[in-house]
């Protein structure tokens, strides 16, 4: 167990951010200078980033430094996701410097900072209470931010919808957690895992608790699926995104998604016993989300509604990786140690692919919203894709940046999105190949095929945006339009540039991430071969492997 001072050091980024947020809230009542508070917030993120960087010393001893007990898991996965959360916070703050309401800027910036803290806490939470509190720390300021974004009916409607449905989802999540506590008598994730695994070994007990476990999982998935906007819990997304501003839509598309994926990995993939229904559920949700998101997006003309459906579809892609990890988990306990090793590798690879995809998605998606803010700062800004026609002529840099993000989201090489999709589909087939002929193999082949078909459908609407910008002459729309308005300030430009660099950088140098992941893979192999018989070991291995791309994230964040 770490000492108190070590704990403080490990959590110092979050602690410092909360303090700074409090300063903003209090200070805001005395002077509400938007620009000043924005720089202050950026400095706060800088301090947090420095602290996070220093805290790496605490566990850099390798796998041995993994500390599974206690309310926080200190591991590479948590570490890299915290970097991602910080980067998101920096980008959103840069946008807020020009977009936040003038009178309430300090409240907006402080709320944003609390959301980031919430995401960071969830990413390393190792205990049910902590998970729930973290998620609420994400949700509650989000209600406020949504409402602060703009002052009209559409925003109010969107906020209310999100508020009600989010509470409902939290209720489902809490319900599921209570079942989990009832089943295991513990709120600590490692203990839950040990208890469930022990019960799974005893056939009679297994049969008895299976239905309850299934219901628990579904309830948890409702709550978490809402966070990541997975079908069929996605209904709020299009309405809310459309009613929000570009800034708050960008927040909705990223922060809850990072938190939701982190919890899904820690709670479901790692803590649940190796049962088939888990990957079946994930796969169902993945196929539903991808398909619904993509086919509906084909019809959209509103840019934020389109991005909402796009975020639904991308949640589906990420669920592919989780399905792979869950399937590997269910294969893990069975056969020889060789098969065990293979399955452990697969599990790690599935999670790594999901995390990589999450990183890529976050930057591309944030980039799109940042670029939209750049084009239209005023109130609502532009709404429709057709407004973008001829943008390549009037604002070539903005059009180029949007094109990069769209290409990346569509998964066109050599951009980051391509590598993300490639690794997901590869892992899906890797699960299928060794078990040729089984139901599992067929299912994962189908999953890969559906994923690819969806990628093709998705290209339809992403490329349409590019086609409108580059190949259509400007239509005679009402002034002021995106062509006449000056572009947003350099802070907004910096946000767009940061996302572009991240997307291009990950796309052009994926080998950096690949090197990192191969290093982690070696670590996984050593670990699994020495602890192959201990079920608890698997938790640790996959989390080491999960750090496929902290380098990139660090880079982006340190800018």
């Amino acid at each position: 167990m770490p000492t108190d001072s070590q704990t403080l050091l490990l959590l110092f980024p979050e602690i410092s951010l909360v303090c700074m947020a409090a300063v903003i809230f209090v200070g805001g009542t005395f002077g509400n200078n938007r620009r000043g508070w924005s720089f202050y917030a950026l400095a706060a993120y800088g301090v947090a980033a420095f602290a996070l960087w220093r805290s790496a010393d605490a566990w850099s001893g390798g796998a041995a430094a993994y500390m599974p007990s206690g309310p926080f898991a200190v591991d590479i996965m948590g570490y890299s996701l915290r970097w991602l959360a910080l980067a998101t916070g920096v980008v959103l703050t840069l946008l807020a410097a020009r977009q936040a309401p003038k009178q309430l800027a300090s409240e907006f910036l402080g709320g944003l900072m609390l959301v980031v803290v919430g995401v960071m806490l969830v990413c390393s939470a190792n205990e049910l209470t902590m998970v729930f509190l973290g998620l609420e720390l994400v949700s509650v300021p989000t209600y406020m931010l949504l409402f602060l974004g703009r002052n009209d009916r559409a925003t109010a409607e969107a906020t209310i919808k999100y508020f009600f449905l989010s509470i409902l989802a939290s209720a489902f999540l809490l319900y599921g957690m209570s079942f989990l506590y009832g089943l295991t008598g513990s709120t600590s994730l490692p203990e839950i895992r040990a208890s469930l695994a022990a019960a799974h070994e005893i056939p009679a007990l297994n049969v008895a608790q299976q239905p309850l476990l299934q219901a628990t999982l579904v309830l948890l998935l409702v709550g978490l699926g809402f966070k990541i906007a997975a079908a069929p819990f996605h209904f709020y997304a299009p309405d809310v995104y459309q009613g929000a501003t570009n800034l708050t839509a960008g927040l909705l598309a990223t922060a809850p998604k990072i938190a939701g994926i982190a919890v899904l990995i820690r709670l479901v993939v790692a803590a649940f016993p190796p049962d088939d229904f888990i990957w079946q559920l994930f796969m169902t949700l993945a196929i539903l989300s991808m398909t619904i998101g993509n086919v509906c997006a084909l019809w959209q003309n509103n840019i934020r509604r389109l991005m909402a459906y796009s975020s639904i579809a991308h949640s589906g892609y990420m669920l592919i990786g989780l399905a792979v990890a869950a399937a590997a988990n269910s294969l893990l306990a069975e056969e020889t140690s060789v098969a065990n090793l293979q399955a452990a590798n697969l599990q790690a690879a599935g999670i790594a692919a999901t995390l990589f995809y999450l990183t890529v998605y976050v930057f591309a998606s944030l980039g799109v919203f940042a670029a939209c803010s750049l084009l239209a700062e005023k109130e609502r800004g532009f709404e429709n894709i057709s407004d973008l026609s001829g943008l390549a002529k009037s604002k070539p840099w903005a059009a180029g940046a949007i094109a990069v993000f769209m290409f990346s989201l569509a998964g066109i090489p050599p951009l980051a999105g391509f590598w993300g999709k490639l690794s997901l589909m590869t892992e899906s087939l890797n699960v299928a190949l060794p078990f040729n002929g089984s139901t599992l193999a067929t299912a994962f082949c189908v999953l890969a095929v559906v994923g690819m078909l969806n990628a093709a459908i998705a290209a339809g609407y992403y490329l349409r945006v590019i086609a409108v910008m580059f190949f259509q002459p400007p239509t005679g729309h009402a002034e002021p339009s995106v062509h006449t308005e000056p572009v947003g300030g350099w802070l907004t430009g910096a946000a767009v540039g940061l996302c572009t660099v991240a997307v291009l950088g990950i796309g052009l140098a994926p080998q950096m991430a690949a090197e990192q992941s191969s290093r982690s893979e070696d670590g996984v192999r050593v670990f699994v071969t020495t602890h192959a018989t201990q079920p608890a070991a698997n938790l640790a291995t996959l989390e080491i492997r999960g750090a496929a791309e902290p380098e990139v994230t660090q880079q982006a964040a340190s800018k």
Partner: protein
Amino acid sequence: MPSLLILIVGLPLLAAVVTAVFGSKLLGRHAHWPAILGIAGSCLCSLALIAQVSDKQSHSAGPSQAGYAETITLWNWADIGHAYDQAPKAIAPGADVLAPGADVLVTPGGMRRFTIDITLRADALTAMMLGMLTFVATLVTIYGAGYMHGDRGYWRFFAYVSLFVFSMTMLVSASNFLLLYVFWEAVGVCSYLLIGFWYEKPEAAAAGKKAFLVNRVGDFGFALALFLIWVTYGTLNFHDTANVAGVLGQTRLLGELGFVGGGVGFAICILLLVGACGKSAQFPLHVWLPDAMEGPTPVSALIHAATMVTAGVYMIARCMPLFLAAPDALLIVSVIGGITMLLAALIALTQYDLKRVLAYSTISQLGYMFLAMGVGTTAAATAGVFHLFTHAFFKALLFLGAGSVMHSMGHVIDMRRFGGLRRVMPITHFTFAIGCLALAGVFPFAGFWSKDAIVAAVHDKVHILEHQGMERHGNAHDAADPEQHAAGRAAADVASAVVTPSVTPVFGLTPSSRARVYQTLYGVAIFTALLTAFYTFRAFFMTFYGPLRTPHEAGPHPHESPRSMTWPLLGLAFGAATFGVLFEGGGWSPLFAKFVQGSPSFAYGFAEYKEFHPDVAMASTVVVLMGIALAAYMYLGHQREVDWIAGLLQFRWLSSLQNLEWVNRAEQHRWLVATKKLAGQLALGWLYGLARGLVVLLATVAIAPLMLVHNLSPYQLSSRKFFFDEIYNAVIVAPLRLLATLSYWVDRYLVDGLVDTCGRFPFGVGRFFRGLQIGLVQFYALAMALGALVLIAVLWLGAAG
């Protein structure tokens, strides 16, 4: 030597890059300077290289059979560690490795390292080609500066020409089949770009396309040859490397590993020949070269007369050891050459476009070179290469002369529209005359020596083969011509000692039947010499003699071309006049032959036999003089007699029969008029009309074959180029076009329709799910709850069932 080779290829490349980068803006009217300086520098280096190679050859004490060659490897281009390969075999010299029926493909395969190095070589053949190429290119580039003056694409022209010179120097100095192929394609691209230089002209664009497509056919054969060489020899290098013996390397030439004969060897050679036929415009792939004259005239001179089209001859010369191992392929090379030279010469007789006459003459002369290459003796091969060498000078000269005429006639090239230019353009007239004399092969101009050497070599080959045949049958040869036959036997002995005995022929021809083939070719060569003299001087007389006539495009005062154009003409004329004597010296001091024989490709396995034949020379000279006299008579002589001969050749008497005017005239006859009137009065006018129609119908049916015959008159056949274009259009182009149209419709309607249907499907699904998005928060909450219930229900039911 390495630095020289690098400079030779590097300077034109540098010039091309400089012109391409700075040409349009910075250089403007001075865009010719990089090209001229680069190519002239390359030329100086080539001359130095020739001197060095010559020096090394005379001092190298190595075995003469392997010749002298030096290679430099610049860098490694490709390296595949485990390329699939048929296990290569060690082949004993001269051994008949593969019986005709044996199948090489069943041998167990293996993995083998496949590396492609960028390797340049210096040997006599390369040095000779480089010297000739860069020398002609220098003069043509200088000429081009005058000829292209004021053209919109001035810099583009010099960029292309420099690029071409780079590609061509790489082609002849590459020491690897793949590299040879790469630059074979590169010169093809340059040729395409330059033929279509005036791409606004539809004819020029079409001609470029035609040249490119016809060459694809040849290149396909070449590519197959490369594959076959790789699986047979296990390497594509000419030279030996550390662990692999090159295809034309010392190891093989010295006899430790021989060359593959039999069916595989034959196939390799025939495929190489297909490639050579494409590039060198040999029958049946000769159709592109005349159309290529749409390009600027300097290009016609450099690429389509002097250098690129001789790449095929160069390639066969380079691969001579491979061909020697497959005598039947050699025979086919000769036959192709013979057919081509006769065909092209016949077509050239009646063309009115001055450049086309020269183009067909180029094809014909290339045919001579192929004939020489196919003979397979040292004398013939060196004669073929020598003809390549001299031809470059006098044909470039003739083209540049034609360009000079064209330049001054306002780009009119139809010989019927001008004449008597000898006083207007004295320098062009003088140099053109030298070119014509050289092309016709008049003593002592360059063409005489090289053409005579070829004809004489064919003559000798006949004797060699006759002797082999007689010895095989054990006959005593007849003593009609003891001297020649003795020589022939000596040569045959040498030949049999080196290559011939154990090579199984594919066709199984006896030496005497081969001898008959070569005898025929000898006759064809002599006859073609007559035709050559005729059409050459026909063009010369039509252009420069007779009363002065100029087209209106030329303006009121046509004048001689500028000095930048006449100086290159004089330079080339000097070459065309003297290089024969200088380098061949009547067989007494064969400088050229001695030099070229030092090349590894020529050093191996030949029958040594070389003598100047006064009788052959005499025969061809007489024939040539006859041709010139005939041309003078036809084009300078009495008009009515000439017309009569022309009428005879055109079957003009047939055309009078075809004219149905006589029906009308007969109707004017008073008996018929009366009959018609009578029939009209008896209300039988319809009967008269019927009878008249019948008569006309019968006459037409009777005339139809006559019309066909009329179109096949000697004159028509020649003037319409033996209908090659029409036949190719009907047999190849039209069916392909039909297929393409069919594919287009299938793709457009069937495939696209299916694809579009697939594309509409996601939209349909999307419309359904969109409908669920009704905006009511109660419904959304219900949907979430229902979703959870359905999932739980399915899981429980699944577990229960």
